[in-house]
């Protein structure tokens, strides 16, 4: 609900007659959409794309399905489509995150080596793993892991069946695990996973 007590679907419907009403969607959702964009394509591109996301949404508002009171998954989907047109920026972000490189490993002290693998190293290695995913798989993984959307919400966002969400997520997680296997991060990674 917004300050006027209208949910997103009602705001969108109202904006068809009174376009200015649409701006209230920005107030509610823009910080989250911007953060998602910044994580994927960097702050500078995100500053542009967050406005672009809402302008695309404004143009598409007549097609919004009013059964869904929360428009955020829809906005994530639009933002994801825009990211697809900015692959260079996304690739650049991955490159930037990989430049630090993993910590040096002392092979004769595996246990200590595992402890030396810092969070930064894991981030670096994860960036590399994520960069290696197919875009559709990466979209699903990041919407779920970073933005904490449900399977249903991702399906809505990307306009794909829930079954496809599951299969893409499974494939992405498998590839991330494979990418980290055998790296210095693997030990720490597995420890974290088994230490639930």
């Amino acid at each position: 609900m917004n300050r006027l007590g209208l949910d997103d679907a009602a705001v969108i419907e109202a904006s068809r007659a009174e376009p200015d009403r649409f701006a209230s969607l920005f107030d509610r959702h823009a910080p989250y959409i911007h953060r998602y964009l910044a994580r994927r394509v960097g702050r500078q591109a995100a500053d542009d794309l967050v406005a672009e996301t809402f302008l695309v949404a404004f143009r598409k508002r007549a097609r919004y399905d009013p059964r869904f009171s929360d428009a955020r998954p829809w906005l994530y989907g639009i933002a994801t489509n825009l990211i697809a047109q900015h692959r260079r920026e996304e690739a650049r972000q991955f490159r930037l995150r990989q430049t630090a490189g993993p910590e040096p490993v002392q092979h004769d002290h595996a246990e200590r080596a595992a402890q030396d693998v810092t969070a930064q190293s894991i981030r670096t290695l994860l960036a590399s793993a994520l960069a290696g995913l197919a875009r559709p798989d990466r979209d699903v993984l990041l919407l779920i892991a970073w933005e904490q959307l449900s399977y249903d919400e991702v399906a809505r966002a990307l306009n794909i069946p829930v079954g496809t969400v599951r299969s893409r997520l499974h494939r992405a997680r498998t590839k991330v695990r494979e990418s980290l296997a055998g790296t210095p991060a693997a030990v720490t990674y597995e420890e974290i996973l088994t230490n639930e």
Partner: protein
Amino acid sequence: MNDLDLIRECAPEAPLLSSVELSDARHRVQTTIARSRAASASGVRPPRAELRTGTARRIAIGGVTVAAAAAITAGVLAGTHRTTPAPVTAPTMHRTTPAPVTVPATLTAREVLEHAAAAALKEPVVVPRDDQFVYTKVVGPGGVVEQSWLSVDGTRNGLTESPVNGKVQKSVLLGCVNGERTYRLPGINGKPIKGGHKPIIAKKPVPMDGPLVTTPCTPELAFFPDMPTTAAAMGPYLERTQGVRLNDLNDLSKTVGFMLESDYILPAQRAALYRFLATTPGLTVDRHVRDVSGRPGIGVVWRFYGSKAMNIFDPRTFAYLGMTTWGEQGQVGGAALVQTAVVDRAGELP
């Protein structure tokens, strides 16, 4: 902690911005919305990239505001880039010499599209000149008729006509000349509106007679000379030029529909388009449907979360009739293509 939690914890650091930090972006959104309303109130419509979601991808990031402003001031700047070409016979694409085809009662989507391709290939081939205009007449929900004249090569000023409150409103769509589009910002007598840097929340149309500005642009074509004539080459072409996600049936089918509704596509190109679409899994057929204007047709249907949409073809001639979209409450939108033709001047009827 599972692996998703780990990926979440290792997400790049990006703060949730405050409303102050997002104010520039909000300003841009709000201003464009206000301009859209002002344009609507003044009868000057945004260019079709603004109006059509299917073609929105054709414009560059950052170009939306500019494009809207360009359209708003188009009436002021209605220029004459047009030369005076020799008269040509205006060809009509879809409504010429309908040749009925006898078909079985049951058809697959692939068969419908193959019939449409075969019918297209029987139409005369007329290649438009760069200085001509693609005329289309469509009927929207409620019987609203909209006519448009789009510059073949995107460099001339186009025109749309549609009824608003019982009156026909004309809107000029600025062409992109030598990579530039010239327009006026909101203002009066060449000067910007006082406080114009703030979001425009006007209750009445914004005067668009401010400073003259020029921005870079890319012409929006209404005819695609390099569009392939084979189905095999069509996918990569649509992906490259229209940004179509080929594995997204909704995106692909709607893009095809939008192109057929507003652009001029040669018979062989159209046949290739239909045949490429026919290779896409997931399409079904609704044998007895009606387009937005009530004409009977065959629907080539696709579904997307809880909704369905269809491209509709004439059941006898397999000419393209238009697109409709459906929600739980029934038909929610669409357009019926009445005529496509090439003419010499914006505003000229075929």
